[in-house]
């Protein structure tokens, strides 16, 4: 192809050519990073929870006055909830996935360790894993023998009495991998402050109620403690029954004890949606900006292309008169655009890498995967070619007779 004449023409339009290259480079750099962030957010929105979201309800109530005999009240609530048609399983819990409020602890492999190994969240409640529908992959579930009353445990902690503190724990696979990489966690002992807990079971996933660092989002433990805080997880037989069961359950609970307020009543699937609302909004915004950027760049190429064509009408006419075909003219402009886009993309890649480095430092983003470079390049080449097509066709339509006319 006739690259040399194109280059010499571009050399005569250095400033304009430079601006086109700059625009393509900036667009390429921003779009590459934006698409990367969009993908990150989408991945986050679809983070596995490890629980059976489509079958779960969450209800939280609070006493208006001072609670009396919470334990008996809790048993009464659970019994009533179990009787509602469509309910498969119920648990009184301390926290739920995506619930935003969590109890967390530093955990160690060795009690003498000065710096904790990591930090994990604590789920409590009888029957909690069965109701949430977590998948046991090693060891056993917690049994009645493991369980102790939360209030007793808290008093024992306050008076440093290790005897009245549970001895067993179920942890997630992610946490097991972090604590004992490549080994089976079942039978190992982990420590919270000075108290040791033997891992009896490992579940596949169980996400934290609140996530401040995605890399530890799956670090959860289930401790054998009975709680009655008026917070319940209900599992239904069919997702279609969720709304009906939720309504019936809330009515039933209010009926048993009217002296309390319903703080929360959700489908767990809605809780997930709420939890990632900001991520979804951010991803949407980024998509919008990417489209706007590409459109502005495309229109800029169309505008400049039109100008160049108008400016070179006579040269085109002369070339046509000297025997160039319409296809030759069309290809000329297409090649010109391809050259500019290629330089722009090359510069853009370097810029994209630089921006990514900045984002890694300031926003704790991971490194931009290599796949984004060819994809970004390809899309900008395509957009450039599409944008230049109109002006190039107009150029090809210039009749040779233009060469003989003065102005």
């Amino acid at each position, binding site marked *: 192809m006739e690259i040399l004449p194109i280059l010499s023409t571009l050399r005569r339009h250095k*400033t*304009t050519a430079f*601006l*086109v290259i*700059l*625009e393509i480079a*900036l*667009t390429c750099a*921003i779009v590459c990073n*934006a698409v990367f*962030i969009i993908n990150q957010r989408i991945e986050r929105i679809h983070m596995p929870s490890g629980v059976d979201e489509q079958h779960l309800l969450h209800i939280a109530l*609070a*006493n*208006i*006055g*001072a609670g009396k005999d919470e334990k008996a009240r809790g048993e009464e609530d659970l019994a009533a909830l179990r009787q509602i048609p469509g309910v498969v399983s119920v648990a009184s819990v301390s926290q739920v996935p995506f619930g*935003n409020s969590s*109890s967390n602890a*530093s955990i160690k492999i060795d009690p003498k360790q*000065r*710096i*904790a190994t990591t930090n994990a969240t604590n789920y409590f409640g009888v029957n909690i894993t069965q109701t949430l529908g977590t998948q046991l992959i090693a060891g056993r579930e917690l049994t009645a023998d493991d369980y102790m009353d939360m209030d007793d445990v*808290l008093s024992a*902690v*306050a008076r*440093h009495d290790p005897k009245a503190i549970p001895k067993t724990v179920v942890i997630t696979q992610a946490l097991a991998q972090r604590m004992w990489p490549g080994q089976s966690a079942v039978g190992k002992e982990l420590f919270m*402050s*000075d*108290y040791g807990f033997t891992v009896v079971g490992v579940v596949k996933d169980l996400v934290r109620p609140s996530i401040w660092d995605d890399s530890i989002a799956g670090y959860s433990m289930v401790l054998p403690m009975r709680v009655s805080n008026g917070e319940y997880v209900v599992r239904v037989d069919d997702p279609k029954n969720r709304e009906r069961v939720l309504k019936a359950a809330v009515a039933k609970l209010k009926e048993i004890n009217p002296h309390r*307020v319903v*703080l929360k009543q959700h489908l767990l699937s809605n809780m997930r949606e*709420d939890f990632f*609302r*900001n991520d979804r*909004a*951010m991803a949407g*915004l*980024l998509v919008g*900006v990417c489209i*706007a*950027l590409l459109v*502005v*760049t495309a*229109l*800029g190429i169309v*505008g*400049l292309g*039109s*100008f*160049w064509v*108008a*400016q070179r009408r006579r040269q085109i006419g002369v070339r046509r008169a000297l025997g160039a075909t319409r296809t030759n003219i069309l290809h000329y402009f297409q090649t010109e655009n391809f050259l500019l886009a290629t330089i722009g993309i090359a510069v853009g890649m370097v810029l994209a890498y630089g921006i990514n480095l900045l*984002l890694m430092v300031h*926003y704790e983003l991971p490194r931009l995967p290599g796949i984004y470079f060819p994809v970004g390049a390809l899309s900008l080449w395509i957009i450039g070619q599409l944008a230049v097509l109109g002006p190039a066709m107009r150029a090809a339509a210039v009749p040779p007779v233009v060469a003989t006319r003065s*102005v």
Partner: protein
Amino acid sequence: MFGYYLDLALRSLRRNKMLTALMVLAIALGIGASMTTLTVLHVLSGDPLPGTSTTLFYPQVDPRDMDGYEEGKRPPEQVSWPDGQNLLQAKRADRQALMTGGSVAVQPAQANIDPFFSDARYTTSDFFPMFKVPFLYGRPWSAQEDEAKARVVVITRTLNEKLFAGKNSVGQTLRIKDAALQVIGVLDDWRPTPRFYDLNTGSNYGTTEDVFVPLSTSRDAHFAHDGSTDCWGSGGGDDEHAETAPCVWLQYWVQLDSPAKVAAYREYLVHYSQEQKALGRFQRPPNVDLPNLMEWMDINKVVPGDVRLQTWLALGFLLVCLVNTVGLMLAKFLRRAGELGVRRALGASKREVFMQLLVESGVIGLAGGSFGLLLAFVGLWLVRKQPSSYAALAHMSVGMLMFTFLLAVGTTLLAGLLPAWRACQITPALQLKSQ
């Protein structure tokens, strides 16, 4: 002359409507996006208490044991009950307040309003004068009432509207978790942005709590504590043992009116830590800090990362739009080389041609800016539809409005400089010859 240039500019812009529209649109999009995000950033990174914030400080001490000790690590973000009480009783600052968040069941006297839960702030008396909290009715409680665990409560205007139809409710009784509290004050509208005094509640840009109760009363009446509790050693962190457990769960603020007092207070914190270490309560070497309000906001990265990222993105977008406009204007001006050559040959100086072209780019900037401003209003409206807690705060101020306009016209003029300068370099004779 300016009128003539304006006329020339408008004529030239009208000659190629599509291109003009394209340039105006590009500028408008860039300006609109940047202004939307800059306004949000401006609102979120603002000073919650202008004029006062420089005298407010957040003392930090480190009561933790040696587990997890690393030199240079910041002290905990809150204080424990004993440290809070010690610092409070020492009264070394001009004003001081110890506080924490909670949630209380409000039982209205009226039968037609169901009981409901309301966020509450348990604090000591200096909270109100120190943070310049405006009162609509009544008064804050006194230090004596703190001491006496008085059953008193201050409520916000919003809650007063809900419970007492906005009437002066001072002297009325509010039932909270079976305790009867006397309303002694009603706050006027007060929404410090961000809600600086407690950054542990998850919504730093939300409204304030509706119920304010003396800290001593809240403990005495067993009101539930909400917010983060960080424990070490064998800490349990439940409400009942909160006073003695090795946990931090309270915020402590002081007012220090002069730099000398700030230095003295810092000194005092070190002495306090040494003394506590000598007593065996503290184990770590003194690790104290005394950031002022805005420094504390920075340390906690209060402005959401996403908002900052969006601002950078919008500015990048504006840059692309400007490069685009520079390119188009350059092409346009150079295309008129013939016309400009004639003007130069007829006696117009380089300066005059330059001015003429700048006026033309200024017109584009003005049009783009106006349109961009409209887009910014649409953008802010969209932001207000977002789920985040700061959504409702996204409003354009007069200052931002002026800034938008200056930014639009300024950047376009800047964008016009290069094309205008290039177009001035044309040699008139050459252009005339080629005609």
